[in-house]
């Protein structure tokens, strides 16, 4: 990758991936509310309806359960739907089809079918949309065997992982943090894939491992930059995938650094960080741990409307800095 790579925003990267998938395979269809002429609530599908027509970029009625179920039925019988929830919060209406049907159908039928379905979930807080439009519910789906669940953090990864997801024979759930949509980064042209089950060490360090998901990867990297100036070398692991979780990469990192912080936006209790922590605590890395495992997760509250409260409800860079300093300097 020596040639200069063009930059795209995260949402442009998603759109490009969907366009490539649709060009390569006419079974790929997009479904969702207002993804056609409106271009999607977050303008991710944009003008794809103009390129591929309303038969392949289908506006669904406001029927999340039914829409998701249609996608499941279509996937089982030969299409390759990419279904967009307008906000991940609305997936609460469709858990039946996602969890009882899509995730289990292959297993329940003894392997007789596959469900090559991709679902996209715009998630997270930070837009002032309050409690019903700001949740991070990836832990729910991460708990469900039969699904694959990913949280790409960069334009590069979201394009490559979405293309991998479309090619995957099983249901893949993609959580996209809304605040990432406008974030830019290098994105290769054409078709490429990024594995759905590998974490990525995004910064090497020796003092503490910070495992972060989605937008928290960027906050962790920012914190790591500041920590370096203080002489603390943080290793930042971008988890990328929460089902399956790449235990190997995390374990190796913790064995090296002997300290672990998990940073995630979902509610702290029973969130992704709980699993990371537990995974390390039961692994061979346990014996290497020099300090308690710290979790920085979302507050035990719904997301409030007021912007200052809203920020206070999820981990921020200063929280990561403070936790890292405490942990490395042994304050706790």
């Amino acid at each position, binding site marked *: 990758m020596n040639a200069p790579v063009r930059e795209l925003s995260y949402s442009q990267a998603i759109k490009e991936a969907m366009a490539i998938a649709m060009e390569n395979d006419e079974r790929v269809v997009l479904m969702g509310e207002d993804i056609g002429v*409106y271009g999607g609530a977050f303008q991710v599908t944009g003008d794809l309806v103009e390129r591929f027509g309303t038969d392949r970029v289908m506006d669904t009625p*406001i029927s999340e359960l039914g829409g998701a179920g249609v996608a499941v039925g279509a996937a089982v019988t030969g299409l390759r739907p990419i279904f967009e929830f307008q906000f991940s919060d609305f997936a609460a209406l469709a858990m039946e089809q996602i969890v009882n049907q899509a995730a289990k159908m292959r297993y329940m039928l003894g392997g007789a079918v596959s469900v090559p379905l991709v679902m996209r979930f715009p998630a997270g807080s930070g837009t002032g949309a309050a409690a019903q439009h700001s949740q991070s519910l990836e832990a729910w789906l991460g708990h469900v065997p039969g699904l694959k669940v990913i949280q790409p953090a960069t334009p590069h990864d979201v394009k490559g992982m979405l293309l991998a997801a479309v090619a995957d024979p099983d249901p893949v759930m993609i959580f996209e943090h809304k605040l990432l949509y406008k974030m830019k980064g290098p994105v290769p042209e054409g078709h490429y894939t990024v594995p759905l089950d590998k974490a990525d060490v995004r910064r090497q360090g020796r003092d503490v491992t910070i495992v972060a998901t989605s937008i928290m990867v960027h906050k962790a990297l920012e914190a790591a930059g500041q920590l370096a100036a203080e002489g603390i070398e943080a290793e930042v692991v971008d988890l990328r995938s929460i089902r399956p979780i790449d235990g190997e990469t995390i374990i190796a990192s913790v064995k090296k650094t002997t300290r672990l912080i998990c940073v995630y936006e979902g509610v702290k209790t029973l969130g992704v960080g709980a699993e990371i922590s537990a995974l390390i605590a039961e692994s061979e890395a346990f014996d290497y741990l020099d300090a308690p495992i710290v979790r920085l997760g979302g507050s035990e509250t719904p997301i409030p409307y007021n912007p200052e409260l809203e920020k206070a409800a999820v981990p921020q860079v200063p929280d990561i800095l403070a936790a890292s300093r405490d942990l490395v300097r042994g304050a706790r």
Partner: protein
Amino acid sequence: MAAQARAAQADAVPQDGDASNLPFIYRTYSREQLLAALHRMHLIRQFEEGAEESYMRGLIHGTMHLSIGQEASAMGICMPLSKEDQITSTHRGHGHCIAKGAEVSRMFAEFFGKTTGYCAGRGGSMHIADVTTGNLGANGIVGGGLPIAVGAALTAKRLKTGKVVVCFFGDGANNEGAFHEALNMAAVWKLPVVFVCENNGYGMSTSTARSTAVANIADRAAAYGMPGVIVDGNVLSDVAEASHDAVERARRGEGPTLIECKTYRYRGHSKSDRNRYRTKDEIEDWMNNRDPIVRYEAQLQEFGIATRGELDAVQEAVRQEIAAGIEFAKESPMPELSGLADNVYTAEVSR
């Protein structure tokens, strides 16, 4: 207003000639009540214009859904309701909230994220509520209020409170499973609830023709064995009459009604709308030829209830109320960060 409405019938607006030929509200409400309704319709519109401007100035964050153009629907439906009656509202709920009796100052305060707001700054536009005047809340989930309204009506029936519950929802919401389940249960149990579909032609960008397999939402009432009524949602009296009939039916214990108000929103769906799915002509036609406030004011003059000057005075009073409301909101305090976890539970859990 129901009790007053009945009282008023005796001294309803005095008319030249035969009053019984006049549209419903002019036969039913006093001049004072009619002007109060106009006041609230202006309040809705100016509140939303004020919110829009405040948003543009960065005083409000997030998003909001304006109901400008739909004022007659909110107001007409609420006219026959008493303060004790309850409503559930939608993401496009400012009008419902004001029509049911909320104060704009506390609504602005909520939008500004202040402690004096109806939701203490935790809810914002999408969760605006005033439980004291019977508004159980806007809802960020399309269709979310439908079963909740049925539950409120169940309480009314079980505890014999005599309350009626009105459930507002949009044309888009009628395709949610919650609509189906809620209407069926309300009908099976004959609950005192009125379902009000504000059909503004679109759910976000998707026209009812593209989303809905029937021409009118009210056509679906038959599937629940309940009356389905279609009204011009931009004519206050027609809306109020339909509401009156449905509310009385509910109070008599005869069960639910589905009212469909055909109306239109002037603004985009929300702050992110680029309006690619409606023509300029269509929008202007509604704005220029069917504005609910203009039509109501014309009738008030035509039937000799108020002069242009008196109508202008209403608008002016509203302007001052709005300005004062914004001022109140601006000056109210921001929540303390330490209160982040307040009201997650009623009694905080002692761990």
